[in-house]
């Protein structure tokens, strides 16, 4: 375990923790961007350059921006007046999350002996990934294209519903 791994891990976990604990929603969006960047760096450390840069493009470039837009459109970047930022059932949620972490950590540590120790870095080029996407994985690729198109249209329709009703008067 190298120093770079621990540094990036600390950055990622700190970003994730800040994202779920901070009061101001815009700060949460910034913190989750830090966590996404840390995950992209972990991908790069795992020699998955394509996935790492896709992570930066999709998550920091698109999802974080979408989250910021949603926060600004719903206009509640300020903290709620009463009751704090956590739900009434926060204790049960925390217990469930801790239990899930305990089970996952136990599973990993109990199976750590059977895990492969060191492997040579796989020599995979972007050209190979592109050929796999256009060859063996062409059907999933087309399905993802269809999914993204329908999600785009669906998101616009869901968010525009009120305006259509006002114009058409079909309430």
């Amino acid at each position: 375990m190298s120093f770079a791994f621990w540094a990036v891990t600390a950055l990622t976990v700190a970003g994730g923790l800040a994202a779920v604990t901070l009061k101001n929603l815009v700060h949460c969006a910034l913190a989750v961007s830090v966590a996404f960047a840390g995950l992209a760096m972990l991908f790069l450390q795992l020699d998955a350059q394509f996935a790492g840069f896709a992570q930066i493009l999709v998550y920091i470039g698109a999802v974080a921006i979408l989250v910021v837009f949603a926060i600004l459109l719903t206009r509640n970047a300020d903290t709620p007046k009463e009751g704090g930022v956590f739900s009434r059932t926060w204790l049960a949620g925390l217990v469930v999350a801790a239990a899930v972490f305990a089970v996952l950590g136990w599973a990993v540590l109990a199976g750590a002996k059977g895990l492969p120790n060191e492997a040579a870095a796989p020599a995979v080029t972007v050209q190979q990934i592109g050929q796999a996407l256009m060859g063996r994985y062409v059907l999933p690729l087309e399905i993802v294209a269809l999914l993204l198109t329908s999600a785009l249209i669906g998101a616009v329709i869901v968010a525009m519903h009120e305006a259509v009703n006002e114009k058409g008067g079909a309430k």
Partner: protein
Amino acid sequence: MSPLAGYLLVAALLFAIGLAGALTRRNAILVLIGIELMLNAANLNLIAFWRYGPHPEALTGMMFAIFSIAVAAAEAAVGLGLVIQVHRHAKTTDLDQMNRMKG
């Protein structure tokens, strides 16, 4: 500790953080952020197993992670569109106040 176990533990920790965020926060947008963190933790597992698995040249885990990123992006777009529409309807994104199915 082998490197793979380290990555798996980090992914488990991130998954737990995302789950805690999704279960404890009151704001719907923060719940979506928690879900995104959980999906990312799963992607880290896929990439780590691809890297240390027996046949990385088959690209299976990598492809799974790339498709998972695409599906997560679609999910985020639709989820945030729903949050905006719910906010327009109920004038709040506080999940504790959205407790009626009839609106």
